[in-house]
């Protein structure tokens, strides 16, 4: 008994509709005889049987669609039919041809923690060289644009080629060494009466929901930004013997990391913000810093740095400038301290604010001007809104 199958009539034929049987069960048939008609995309085609015999059974009803190779009928072959050579299994070449018949089901993708968005713009050649040298690209000072091979040139002299155990430590060490070596620092400080500002802030916050409350840190940053707007010389860079003043005020905010270490991501375009948005941006920045989700620009575009170690009890900070910036503002702890008002001695909330400046870019007069402005602003906190 043999099967009469739906024939392949073309390379792109997948199936056809059996339209009509031209024989019935029990009919004798001859090799080459047309026994059915099938409808294809190109029209109705007659199909033939390839052996002599008798139709034993019709397996498919008319008007049924069948894929190529589907058995359509059983043929009881005559004994005299020549034995067909048995098809030995020939090892087919290992070509995996995927022929999807149905839409592939979408695979459930496990949502992993997305990788940190830190991506410095660097050319492929620079990346590779940095890798070879064990240099963390993040440590290269916020150059404007993309890091290229020549930017790595200066580093090749300073490096010993061991694997960096603590990349950040090494990076900081490098930056600070450079700062100390290259930048002639001058240091200024001022004591600021924070009582009015804090009182005002307390008032403001009492009328607000917890989510909308402003932290003192935000108030201080806001004040620094406004002061810099009036003394822009401190907001910029020293590069190639040139003092470049940055239009954008992007204060790097020193944030302590849980596992140790300090990072100073920038609050970008702080000059565009108000007190509320400063607070929101600060909050967001701290959150993302701790979650390791900073943007490249936040790591490289600082135009000045604010370090506030007040939490740790330090009253006065003598900061080291991060090159190529030209200033770093230090804010100490707000403490209850004796304060003279007129002739009377009283106790006020006092904070030491310091300014370390690059003497190549500015002199003490500028620094003093800045600190004075800062002080003034904090005495009129309502202007900080």
């Amino acid at each position: 008994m043999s099967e009469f199958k739906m024939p392949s009539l073309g390379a792109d034929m997948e199936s056809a509709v059996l339209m009509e049987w031209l024989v019935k069960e029990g009919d004798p048939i001859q090799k080459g005889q047309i026994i059915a008609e099938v409808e294809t995309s190109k029209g109705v085609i007659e199909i033939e049987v390839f052996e002599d015999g008798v139709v034993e059974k019709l397996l498919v009803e008319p008007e049924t669609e069948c894929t190529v190779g589907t058995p359509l009928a059983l043929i009881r072959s005559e004994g005299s039919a020549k034995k067909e050579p048995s098809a030995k299994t020939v090892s087919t070449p290992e070509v995996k041809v995927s022929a999807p018949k149905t839409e592939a089901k979408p695979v459930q993708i496990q949502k992993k923690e997305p990788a940190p968005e830190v991506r410095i713009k660097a050319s492929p050649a620079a990346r590779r060289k940095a890798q070879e040298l064990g240099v963390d690209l993040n440590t290269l000072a916020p150059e404007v644009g993309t890091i290229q091979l020549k930017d790595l040139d200066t580093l090749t002299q300073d490096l010993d080629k061991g694997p960096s155990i603590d990349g950040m430590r090494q990076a900081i060490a490098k930056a600070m060494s450079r700062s100390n070596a290259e930048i002639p620092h001058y240091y200024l400080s001022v004591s600021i009466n924070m009582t009015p500002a804090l009182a005002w802030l307390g008032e403001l916050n009492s009328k607000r929901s917890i989510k909308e409350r402003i932290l003192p840190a935000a108030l201080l940053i806001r004040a620094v930004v406004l002061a810099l707007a009036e003394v822009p010389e401190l907001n910029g860079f020293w590069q190639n013997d040139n003092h470049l003043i940055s239009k954008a005020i992007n204060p790097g905010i020193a944030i302590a990391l849980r596992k140790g270490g300090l990072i100073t991501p920038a609050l970008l375009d702080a000059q565009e913000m108000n007190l509320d948005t400063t607070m929101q941006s600060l909050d967001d920045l701290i959150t993302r810093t701790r979650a390791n989700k900073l943007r490249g620009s936040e790591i490289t575009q600082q135009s000045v740095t604010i370090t506030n170690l007040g939490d740790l009890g330090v009253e006065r900070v003598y900061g080291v400038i991060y090159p190529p910036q030209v200033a770093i503002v230090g804010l100490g702890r707000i403490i209850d301290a004796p304060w003279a008002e007129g002739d009377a001695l009283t106790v006020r909330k006092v904070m030491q604010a310091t300014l370390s400046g690059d003497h190549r870019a500015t002199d003490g007069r500028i620094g003093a001007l800045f600190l004075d402005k800062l002080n003034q602003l904090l005495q009129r906190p309502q202007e900080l809104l």
Partner: protein
Amino acid sequence: MTMDLTLANKFYTQMLLIRRFEEKSVELYSNEKIRGFLHLYNGEEAVAVGVMHALSLDDAVLATYREHGQALARGIPAKNIMAEMYGKVEGCSRGRGGSMHLFDAQTRFYGGNAIVAGALPLAVGMALSDKMMNKNRVTVCFFGDGAVAEGEFHESLNLAVLWELPILFVCENNRYAMGTALEFTQSETDISKKAAAYRLSSHQVDGMDVIKVAEAAEQAVSQIHAGKGPVFLECLTYRFRAHSMFDAELYREKEEVQQWKEKDPLRVFEDRLEETGLWSKIKVKEIEDKISDLISEAVEFAENGTYEPLSDLEKFVYSPEVTS
């Protein structure tokens, strides 16, 4: 041409071999053993067999994608053609060509071309170079009525006559270019007349009668050998099956096919042999059996063939040796 028993056996055997080979190919294609395109020669056997008879092994043959008849009549073993269609390395083109691209250096069989009229310019070049090399041999170029529409047909005929090239042009006019009848494609449907317009020695032949074809071919070849330039034979023939396997034949009537089946070249030849009393001497059953065995062997050969290793994929793109 004198028809004797030897010749009668040769013609009958060759035509029957082609017929049975094609029938087997249908079955194998239906069972997905042969893939791609399959263009069958049933009904046109007399043309290939008749023309090949007039050629010597030294001559060159250029054929179309409907070439099984030419390939078999030329002497390419059935098993190598079958293996080729199975995609096996034992095929005459190492499985690289398939049904439409049969090549065989030994019999000077230069394919097998899937572009209609694509081989005519090649024929011009082969004949031109034969002349240059002072080789007195013939280049035969088979093509269908469809080729007459292509620019290359006209360019090639013009060059062949202009340069007096030893080409035998054989137009197998089966009246249809795939699904379009000749009357819908040619302003002048008498193809031999069009060829004559190029000052080509042009003749129309009954393509269903192998004796007539053979006689015309013999005459053409001797004319070419005599240096009288190219010859054009328009063989009026018919294909009993569709253009290719996947063709519903919506473009022609069943009655027309039936009519032409009355002129089946096997039957026509039988009649011609009856006239001379040779038919009774033909041992039909013996021939059928031998052919059946041959074809079974060919299928077995193909089934048991091997596939070219994938690591050889990038072979045969460039010929390696550079002469300096």
